[in-house]
């Protein structure tokens, strides 16, 4: 058949019409849209049986009870545990993101041995046997060579069974160089030692206070146990309690406080004394407490017969509102008003520890604040500052100190501090670099990330680079692990058994039970087991000090009769013991509360830098949306960070428009920030809520390790601020540093 133009066209039209009328195109259209509804690259979570497992969050010192929702063996959500004494069901944004850490890309999946240059990220996977063998061989070498003291250890937390195992290990091995990260609580503890005469943790009965005078505490920014403190704040609002926030920056805490009083940073102690001055002058202090239970208020005669000016006269002479106004920049009338309100309240409470209380801070400041509490009788009573004894572990056998260990323990500590005093980790880096004393041959790091969190990162990095053998027990590829020689990954908190002791500042003794909610995902090992294995391998007194088969056994012994309660309830809560009466409270030589000379003296912390070269003051600040400790922000948390703090990879420095104007800076300008210890490029963010002349950077940014969700974003504030040793405690008391900004 011949196909002419006409029949061809008819055929074409026929086929087209036929196809259009057939179900084919319709089916195809439908199928295509069904395909778009089920794109194979969009995950479909599997369904299954839902269960809840209670445990404890240890991503920060808050130690909240958590309830993990599981679908079969997958964890799908972490929630606050209802009825937990610490957080009462509440939970913070970091705690909620925990599963992103469990399943996240920064987990270390097996023991690793460095094969390339340090920090180059070249690793070989090794077996646990090999790792333990290699370490014990090294350790054995140092010990037999009489160099056990040249091994140092850093553990973030000073508490809990694992931490104590760690220090026990180092002691039995023979080194005095066991460090933990001190915080403002350590400073307050020293104040308590001198003024209350007890060695105990300071605890704050926030819930029963009705007037809170906060000297820069980030009460809503993660101070204390963060969820508990925020809940206390809600209680204050509902009970019409008043919160006065003293700090140079309009933080979230300042914004929600009943009054924000801006202050020249570093002069908080002077304000405390100014308030004390008014209380004394106007006879508004608690006469019962001061007259009957305190010593050193009035002039007194020492054992040597010297006449000493008491707290009263010193404060009256030196801290009139006018004098204090000149120091702090606060109006005298505001100081008088503040003092009167403080005195009038039923349960006034003064608090210190800047931001989250991560920096120990000035001891004399803590003492001045504590004296203020004493003046109004807010010590060891409802709504006041109380003390909580630190219990020792009872169930463990005496530690065996063999000859090698004893020799090592007799060596001076690297930080130069006395054996029992709080360790001055801020001195560690400079001690290593100074070359005086002895070198550090090996460093063990547990649950801390000193390369990132220690002040003056440059010096810390240089010092740590000099240590020939660094072992990290981290679960994550953090900055310290990246630069280690061996990594022995710990289970993360959701995979391990552990006791979690009383959160900082919490008024009742509580132990939380951290449970292995999940079977370990990777080839990791409980740090407790790692230590026990190492001890056994080392033999001698070390092995004898670690008689347990595994961590579980050691843990059971440590918990003793509390274990049952822990397993049943998920936490153990001490029965509420009434605070001791004032007459029984104080264990000072006088048997009374001691108004020490230091508590009446404002001795400003000498921060680094001279004012001519560095006209501005840089202060760090903390927020609930940035984790600035040993845990880096998981992706969810970073997502909540405002674009005025981080934009793409640029971090912002907060600056008052007045200060900006003087430097001809406008919003978003790229600037170079210089301090005596560092230099970095940032961008300017203009905020009215900051004292002119002061600039502020958040903690928690500027990571170089972890993953693409946090690394390379913003700058690490610790690299800009150096430590300043407190003359009284030796701890880091830096609240900031001098700085200058110039247009980039």
């Amino acid at each position, binding site marked *: 058949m011949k196909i002419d133009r006409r029949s061809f066209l008819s055929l074409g039209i026929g086929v087209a019409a036929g196809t259009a009328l057939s179900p084919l195109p319709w089916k195809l259209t439908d199928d295509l*849209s069904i395909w778009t509804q089920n794109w194979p690259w969009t995950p479909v979570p599997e369904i299954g049986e839902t269960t809840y497992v209670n445990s404890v969050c240890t991503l920060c010192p808050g130690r909240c009870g958590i309830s993990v929702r599981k679908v079969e063996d997958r964890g799908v959500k972490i929630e606050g545990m209802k009825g937990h004494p610490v957080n009462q069901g509440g939970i913070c944004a970091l705690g909620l993101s925990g599963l992103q850490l469990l399943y996240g890309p920064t987990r270390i999946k097996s023991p690793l041995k460095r094969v390339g240059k340090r920090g180059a990220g070249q690793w070989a996977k090794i077996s646990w046997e090999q790792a333990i063998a290699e370490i014990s061989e090294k350790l054995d070498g140092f010990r037999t060579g009489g160099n056990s003291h040249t091994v140092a250890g850093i553990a973030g937390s000073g508490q809990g069974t694992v931490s104590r195992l760690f220090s026990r290990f180092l002691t039995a091995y023979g080194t005095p160089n066991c460090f933990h990260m001190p915080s403002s609580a350590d400073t307050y503890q020293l104040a308590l030692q001198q003024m209350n005469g007890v060695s105990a943790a300071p605890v704050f009965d926030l819930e029963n206070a009705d007037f809170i005078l906060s000297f820069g505490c980030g009460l809503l920014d993660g101070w204390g146990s963060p969820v508990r403190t925020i809940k206390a704040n809600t209680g204050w609002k509902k009970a019409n309690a008043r919160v006065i926030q003293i700090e140079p920056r309009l933080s979230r805490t300042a914004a929600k406080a009943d009054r924000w009083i801006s202050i020249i940073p570093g002069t908080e102690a002077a304000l405390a004394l100014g308030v004390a001055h008014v209380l004394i002058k106007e006879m508004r202090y608690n006469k019962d407490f001061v007259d009957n239970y305190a010593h050193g208020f009035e002039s007194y005669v020492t054992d040597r017969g010297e006449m000493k000016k008491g707290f009263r006269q010193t404060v009256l002479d030196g801290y009139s509102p006018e004098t204090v106004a000149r120091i702090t920049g606060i109006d005298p009338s505001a100081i008088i008003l503040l003092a009167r309100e403080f005195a009038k309240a039923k349960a006034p409470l003064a608090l210190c520890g800047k931001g989250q209380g991560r920096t120990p801070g000035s001891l004399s400041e803590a003492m001045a604040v504590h004296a203020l509490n004493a003046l109004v009788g807010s010590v060891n009573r409802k709504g006041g500052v109380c003390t909580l004894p630190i219990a020792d572990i009872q169930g463990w056998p005496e530690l065996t100190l063999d000859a090698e260990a004893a020799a090592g323990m007799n060596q001076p500590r690297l930080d130069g501090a006395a054996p029992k005093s709080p360790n001055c980790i801020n001195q560690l880096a400079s001690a290593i670099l100074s070359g005086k004393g002895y070198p550090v041959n090996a460093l063990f790091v547990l649950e801390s990330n000193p390369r990132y969190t220690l002040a003056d990162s440059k010096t810390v990095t240089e010092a740590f680079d000099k240590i020939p053998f660094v072992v990290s027990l981290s679960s994550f590829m953090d900055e310290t692990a990246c630069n280690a020689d061996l990594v022995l990954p710990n289970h993360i908190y959701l995979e391990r058994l552990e006791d979690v002791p009383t959160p900082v500042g919490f008024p009742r003794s509580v132990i939380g039970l951290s449970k292995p909610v999940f079977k370990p995902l990777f080839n990791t090992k409980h740090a407790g087991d790692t230590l026990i294995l190492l001890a056994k391998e080392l033999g001698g007194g070390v092995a004898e000090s670690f008689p347990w088969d595994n961590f579980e056994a050691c843990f059971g012994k440590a918990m003793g009769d509390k274990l049952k309660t822990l397993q049943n309830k998920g936490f153990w809560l001490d029965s509420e013991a009434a605070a001791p009466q004032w007459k029984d409270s104080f264990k000072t030589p006088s048997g009374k509360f001691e108004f020490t000379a230091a508590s009446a003296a404002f001795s400003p912390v000498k921060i680094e830098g001279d004012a001519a070269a560095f006209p501005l003051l840089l202060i760090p600040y903390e927020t609930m949306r940035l984790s600035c400790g040993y845990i880096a922000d998981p992706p969810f948390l970073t997502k909540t960070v405002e674009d005025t703090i981080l934009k793409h990879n640029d971090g912002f420095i907060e600056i008052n428009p007045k200060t900006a104007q003087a430097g001809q800076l406008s919003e978003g300008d790229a600037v170079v920030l210089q301090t005596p210890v560092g230099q970095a490029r940032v961008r300017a963010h203009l905020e009215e809520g900051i004292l002119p002349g002061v600039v502020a950077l958040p903690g928690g940014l500027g990571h170089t390790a972890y993953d693409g969700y946090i690394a390379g974003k913003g700058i690490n504030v610790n690299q800009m601020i150096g430590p300043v040793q407190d003359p009284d405690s030796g701890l880091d008391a830096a609240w900031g540093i001098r700085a200058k900004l110039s247009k980039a």
Partner: protein
Amino acid sequence: MDSALIPNGVRRCSLDKFLVALIVVGAVLLWGVYAMLLCWFKGLNQTNMNDNYGFALWIWADLAVIALGGGAFFTGFLKYIIGKDELKNIINYAVLIGFICYSSALLILAIDIGQPLRGWFIFWHANVHSMLTEVAFCLSCYFMVLTIEYVPLILENRQVDKVPFFHHLSHNMHATMAVFAATGAFLSFFHQGSLGGVAGVLFGRPFAYREGLFIWPWTFFLFTWSAAAYGPCFTLLITRITEAVAGKKLVKDNVVELLAKISGWMMTSYIIAKIIDTVYWANVTAPSKGFTLMDFYSNNGFYGIWILVLEIVLGGVVPAAILITDKGRKSPVARTTAFVLAVIGVSVNRWVMVLQVMAVPVMTFDKWALYYPSWQEVATTLLPVAYGIILIMISYRYLPIFPQEAELNPVE
């Protein structure tokens, strides 16, 4: 070489010249197609749209192109329904431009939606309360009408016409064209209106929101009216440009002047209505939501009151004034200026009703949001322009678009 396809009695440029031009425009088209494919395969992250700018450059292009394409329905309405017979000399071109505008609009919509393969849900799961549903239905139907109006033109190609079937088909279609023109006009009144309604019903957006009649906000009527008024100007402008490119007159002045006059009077009445609407909105509607007129035109780096002046005075009052005067209409320069201003005026109106709506902060703690299109957006927006030029080039070369061409340009 292609002379057999070229209509009788007219002269066209050489095939080489034609092909070179085609390649140049074709390159732009290909660039646009590439951008389009990026958007389809990688998603709308290829654009600079964001959660504040759900509607952006494309939707403006869409609305503008439909307003400008309004020349087709309105000229059809004038010719077939009102009986302005002279307009038969420009109706073909009006239909072609309309066809280009509407097919472009549909293409843009297909790129603009996040799930193009589910686009048909708009019909299947139609929500009768949504202005966009109305738009989709009327737009698609009117596009079919335009196709039906355009097909007879294709059939008039010398070679196609030789097939008896097509010859008769063409003839019969011409005979029934009035019915389609009426349908088209009806559909157009609705979809032009519902496009106006799209912005006008947004009671969460005080800058866009207008009160109205029954379910239709005033913008509904203003959009239809403005499309009818300004669309013919665009037809005339494109005709003028085509004449300039071809280097010869294609439509007689009396035809142009007639359409321009009608357009001018439509524009005059429209702009009066628009001014009344603006005054009422500025003094009653917006203040009732807590806004003053200047809230919409200050505190940002781009939108000032100038844009309102540009739209209403320069793009409305001025061209209307030119076109309703004899002198203005008769002067080719003044007339063409008016066409250009009118096209700008209606485009600015559509811009404002899409982009400024998105830019104005509503919550007191919101900020003005400005946005710059990405190159992918620009390319996909130029794609229909290139496609339109190509379709015009081919249609002009091979189809008897302009009935008066042979008479105006006798071939010796």
